[in-house]
């Protein structure tokens, strides 16, 4: 799975600055809470930690450095790229 979705948040490497570019096509399947929390396109982020056995991801994002926990399953909806 690690390389299956290289452009998705679920498979993004840890501790590397990235940027949200958009969402998966299946937008209606995605929890709206992701948007409400402010995980929007153009937002910069970093995955700081992941709980063991592919547990939730600990993500820091935005200029406010907000922290949020997401499961891989939700992170799969979010398209990302490395921020140069």
């Amino acid at each position, binding site marked *: 799975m690690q390389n299956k979705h290289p452009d998705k948040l679920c498979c993004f490497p840890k501790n590397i600055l990235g940027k949200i570019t958009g969402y998966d096509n299946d937008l209606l399947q995605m929890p709206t809470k992701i948007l409400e929390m402010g995980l929007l396109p153009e937002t910069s982020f970093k995955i700081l930690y992941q709980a063991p056995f592919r547990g939730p991801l*600990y993500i820091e994002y935005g200029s406010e450095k907000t922290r949020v926990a997401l499961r891989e399953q939700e992170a799969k909806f979010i398209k990302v790229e490395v921020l140069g």
Partner: protein
Amino acid sequence: MQDQKKKKQILLVGNPNVGKSTLFNSLCNRKQKTGNYAGVTVASLSGTYTYKNEEVEITDLPGSYSIYPTSEDEAIFTRYLIQEQENYAGVLYIADAINMKRSLLLFQQIQDLGIPILMVVNQIDEAEKRGIKINSEALSAKLNVDILRTNAKEHLGIDEVREAIFETQFKKTSQSTFEIPIEQKGLVYKIAEKTKDHNLYKIWTLLAADTYLGKIERINEIISQEDAKCNVPKRLQIQETVRRYQNIDKIISETTEKIPQRKQLLTEKLDRILVHPVWGYLVFLLILLLIFQSVFFLAEYPMNWIEGAFSWLSTFSAEQLPQGPINSLISNGIVPGIGGIVIFAPQIGILLYFLYLLEDSGYMARVIFLMDRFLRPFGLNGKSIVPLVSGTACAIPAIMSTRNIENIKERLITILVTPFMTCSARLPVYSIIIGLIIPDENFYGIKYRAIALMAMYLIGFGMSLFASLILKNIIKTKVKSFLVMDLPTYKMPLFGYDFKLVLGKVWEFISGAGKVIFTVSIILWTLSYFGPSEKQNQSVASDVKLEQSYLGKIGRGIEPAIAPLGYDWKMGISILTSFAAREVFVGTLSTLYSLDDEAPEGRLIEKMRLDTHPNGEKVFSFATGVSILFFYAFAMQCISTIAVVYRETQSLKWTLLQTFAMTLLAYFSALVAYQILK
């Protein structure tokens, strides 16, 4: 003289973890009462204060990120906000200076609904530490709202907030910040004409809200079937959120300054350990150990004082009251019965206090993060850990705290299995039975009794996981489970505020259980004082022997059902009465033994130890004891819990299923245990 003052009603609203409770606590220094909407760790209260001779009542609603709810507690918030609109003067909106962006989403939604609002920006000093500078004047002008700045923790700006509420500085705007997308405009106008409501955003929310909003569902009666079919609420919500954030981004960039900081913040430092794959779990385990250690050892001192006080009261009333049945009812029935409950107040208090502190500090979110992966295979959510841990205090608040679990299936499973957790009401039963059947000896310094008690906790936890696993395969749902959870910055918990909450909860427990025990004692006493008469002209005889009384007859009547479990009729009666509440078991036994003139004298546990069957065998043998322990571990013996389960699930089916399944499990496991060990 009549009080002519009219109360001014204010709602306290904001995102979760923005310091709402702190502000609430600073504002309402006088009266506070738990509202109908109380959770356990998320405390929503209403409180009052008087300022310049005006009485103000503030209701602290559960935090939310938007008016479109995804969980039950958020639904409570939205329902209250919209349906009670005529009953409050305005919304006091708490914005978080650290995360202004997220705060503004909900703010503008409420503002656009035409609700009068006043903004309080909290934690400004914290934000400045992070290099965030907010220009309040510019922001106030952009948002068209009055803005106050507070630091609730240090009581700064509180009087200004009171003054603003006194002056009713709540502003209502007519200009919506959200423009209805072209695709929906036609439909929105059509509804506006039909309903004569000209707040277009309000109509939009009717289209965009899913089923969660209750009354709002009426929209389907207004719009045509065809329009309803094309309407995908979620798509509208997404559209709205994205557009609003675009607008908010602009406002933020024009009103705040951000100086990048290199300094590491406390939260970052702490989380390196607290969510670490090894240290994180170790710390959590240590915290749990510390809590249980405190529950059992720290609580010992106040428990001894309470025991002393009640035994003094019992002796005192026995000596002072005139001799007779009433004397025995009070000094042997009611006083020891109530004392048997009050004695557990310290343990419950300590447990709840720790839970409040953990929640308050922001640590609970980390526990959810750590546990999610391990609870998921059981059909639970990381968020289930909070009710499960709270369940060791009491299942009632624990079940209420499931409201923040978004997924209905996960929430239902959590509600159904939480009563398996060893709640504090089981403690009195466990400690007396373990005291009877386990010798007071050490195993390399560890008490056998402590090991037995620990085992009971593990059995409860194990059974709740096992039951989840079964339920996971029974309950079907299409709704996908998800976890999107804010990890708040760590805060120093509000020790005083939490302590006050705990005192309130403990008092609720004592008075609630006290009433039950009081009633049960009187009923037991009446049933034991009277019995069927053998004389023909009289149907009821008084002052009969316990065995001859109605109570004795009932006990004998149920004996066939309980004899296979190894119980005599006294235990049978005690178990029967403890279906009101588990802790009543000990109170009932103590009443029964003191009513029985033939029972040995001394403390209850001594009486129980010495009690024998007619054939000379001990009544409380090892097998009987284990059987009772199993029965209490699994049986659903708490009317209040059943009531709460029904209220939270709104399903008679699940409530009854849970009650019967648990009680059957209790019966058969007790049966098997007794038959094997006997």
